[in-house]
C-alpha cells in the first residue's frame, strides 16, 4: 500500500503547489498508516527532486522521456497508472489545476478508481473513504464516498498548509513499459505569460470591477498589486468589455482562485463572481455602495470611491515595504 502523489514541474522546477500536494499526501498517508511515493515526469535534477522529501515523500520516482515533454493526457495517464499499480497505491493525489483536471479522469477509467475533485480538506474518514469537495460552485460542499479500491483526489490549490518533515527520501529513476507513442497531441506554438505573477499561483490578488469606471483608471490598482507582490484580476463585465484580458476574469466561468488575500475594488459581488473567489482566506471590498453583496463576503471593507482610496493604499503599502 502507498499514497502516490503526482508532482508537476515547470521547466524542471517545482512550485509551492507541488510541496502543498506532497504535504497533503503525507497527512493522508499518516491517516492510513502508509507512506508517500512522489512521481515526477520530465527533466528534473536530483537536487530539485530531493526537495519533495522535505515534505514527507519517502520515495521519489523520476520518469524522464522525451515524448512526455508535451502534455498528452492519454500518455500521462498511462504512465501514472502504471506507476500506481507498481507502487500498490490505494490513493493517488493530483492537483486540481489544468493538467491535473486533464489527467485525473483518464487515470480514473484506466484504474477504475473513483475521483474526488476539488478536495479542500483531509479525508473525513478512511473507511468508508470520504472526501470533502466543492460543489455548486462553492455554495455547498459534498461528503463524497469513493467506493473503489483505488481513489483519486484532485486537491484544490492553496487549500493545505505546507508541512516540513525530516528528509528521508530515496530517489529512483523509474522506467515504464507504457507505450508513450500513443501520444498524439502536438504543440505548434507556446505563448507563455512572462514577468507576471500567475493569478492561480498568487498569494495576493488585487481585482477590479465595473466600479473602476474606465480601463484608463487601472494605474493605481496595478501599482498596489506590484507593491504587494500581487497578481491582478477582474470581474466578468470588465473582461467582456475588453477593459482587461480574459486571462484575468475570476468567477464561476472564469478562473477559480483561493489566494490568502483578495482585494475587490469596485466589484459588487454577484453570486457568479463570489463562486470564483469565495475560497480566499481574506476578502477586502472597496465599493461606493454600502449595500453591495461583496461586503457580506468580505472581512474588511471600505465604503468609498476607489479612485481616491487606491492611491492612499499604494502609499501606505509602499511605506510598509520600505
Amino acid at each position, binding site marked *: 500500500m502507498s499514497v502516490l502523489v503526482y508532482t508537476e514541474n515547470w521547466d524542471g522546477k517545482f512550485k509551492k503547489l507541488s510541496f502543498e500536494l506532497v504535504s497533503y499526501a503525507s497527512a493522508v498517508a499518516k491517516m492510513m498508516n502508509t507512506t508517500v511515493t512522489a512521481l515526477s515526469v520530465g527533466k528534473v535534477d536530483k537536487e530539485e527532486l530531493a526537495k519533495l522529501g522535505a515534505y514527507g515523500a519517502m520515495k521519489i520516482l523520476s520518469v524522464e522521456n522525451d515524448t512526455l515533454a508535451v502534455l498528452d493526457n492519454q500518455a500521462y495517464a498511462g504512465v501514472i497508472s502504471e506507476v500506481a499499480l507498481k507502487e500498490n497505491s490505494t490513493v493517488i493525489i493530483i492537483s486540481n489545476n489544468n493538467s491535473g483536471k486533464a489527467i485525473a479522469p483518464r487515470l480514473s477509467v484506466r484504474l477504475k478508481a473513483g475521483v474526488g475533485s476539488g478536495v479542500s480538506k483531509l479525508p473525513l474518514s478512511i473507511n468508508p473513504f470520504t472526501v470533502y469537495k466543492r460543489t455548486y460552485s462553492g455554495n455547498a460542499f459534498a461528503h463524497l464516498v469513493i467506493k473503489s479500491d483505488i481513489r483519486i483526489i484532485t486537491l484544490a490549490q492553496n487549500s493545505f498548509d505546507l508541512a516540513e518533515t525530516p528528509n528521508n527520501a530515496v530517489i529512483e529513476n523509474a522506467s515504464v513499459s507504457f507505450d508513450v507513442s500513443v501520444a498524439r497531441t502536438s504543440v505548434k506554438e507556446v505563448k507563455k505569460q512572462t514577468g507576471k505573477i500567475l493569478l492561480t499561483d498568487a498569494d495576493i490578488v488585487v481585482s477590479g470591477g465595473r466600479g473602476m469606471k474606465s480601463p484608463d483608471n487601472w494605474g493605481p490598482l496595478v501599482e498596489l498589486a506590484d507593491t504587494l507582490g500581487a497578481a491582478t484580476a477582474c470581474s466578468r463585465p470588465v473582461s467582456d468589455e475588453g477593459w482587461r484580458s480574459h486571462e484575468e476574469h475570476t468567477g464561476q466561468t472564469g478562473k477559480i482562485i483561493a489566494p490568502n488575500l483578495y482585494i475587490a475594488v469596485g466589484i459588487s459581488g454577484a453570486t457568479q463572481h463570489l463562486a470564483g473567489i469565495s475560497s480566499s482566506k481574506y476578502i477586502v471590498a472597496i465599493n461606493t455602495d454600502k449595500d453591495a453583496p461583496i461586503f*457580506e463576503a*468580505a472581512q474588511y471593507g471600505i465604503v468609498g470611491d476607489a479612485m481616491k482610496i487606491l492611491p492612499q493604499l499604494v502609499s501606505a503599502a509602499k511605506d510598509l515595504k520600505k
Partner: protein
Amino acid sequence: MKILVCISNVPDTTTKIKLVDGNASIDTTGIQWVINPWDELSLTRALELKDDQSTGVKSVTVAHVGPASSEPTIRKALAIGADDAIRVNAESSDAYFVAAQLAEVVKKEQFDIILCGIESSDFNGSAVGGMISEFLGIPSVSAVSSISFDGGNPVLTRDIDGGKEIVNVPAPFVAIVQKGIAKEPRIAAMRGIMLARTKPVKVVEPVAVDLLTQVIAFEKPAPRAACKFIDAANPAQLIDLLKNEAKVI
C-alpha cells in the same frame, strides 16, 4: 465531420442552494434548470463551425444522460440549433457512470469531435470529458479556449499554467472546453423553438456500469465573520490591519 456536444442540466447559476433531508440533498423546489454554461458555449461553437462550410462539419448532435424530466434542456439545445439529440434514460449518478454511457453513444454513432464543458456548475467534477476519451482510447485536450480548422485539420488552444499552447490533434478526439470558446451563448430564436419540436430525440437505455462514488451529505460553507468597516478618510488603516491583524501582507 460529425460533432457531438455533451450537455448536462444544472440549476440556474444564481440559485440559492438550500439543503434538505438532513443535509443529504439539495432542495430542488422552484429551481430553474438550464444547460450547463460551458456546455452551452460548446454547443454555440459547434454550430459556428457547422455554419462555416469550409470546416466540413456536417452535423451537430447533443447527448444527455438524464430521466425524461430533463427533456426541456434537450429541446432548448435543439432550439438553439443542434440537429438531433440522444438521451440516455438514466439518472446521472456519478461521473464514471455518465461518461461510460456517453462513450457508448460515441461508439455507436461514430462522432469525430466530442465537446464537453470543463465542469458542471453543480457537481464541479471536471471529469466526464476526460473519462469518455479514456473509455474510447482516443486523445483528449483539456482547458480548450478555441477550436478552428486549418486546411481540414483541427487546431485547438489550451490553457496551461502560465500560458497557452496551440495544439494539433487528429480526430476523433474529445475537447474539454472552457470560457473563450465562443463569445456569447447562442440564443434560441422563435423559428428555432418551433423547429425543435419536430427534431429527433433518440432515447436509449443505459448500459450496466458500477458507481464509484456517492454523495452522502452536503454542508454549506462556514459563514464568514462580519465585515469590519474602515473609514474611507483613513484607508491606510486597512494596510495596518492586513499586516498586523490578518497577517496576510
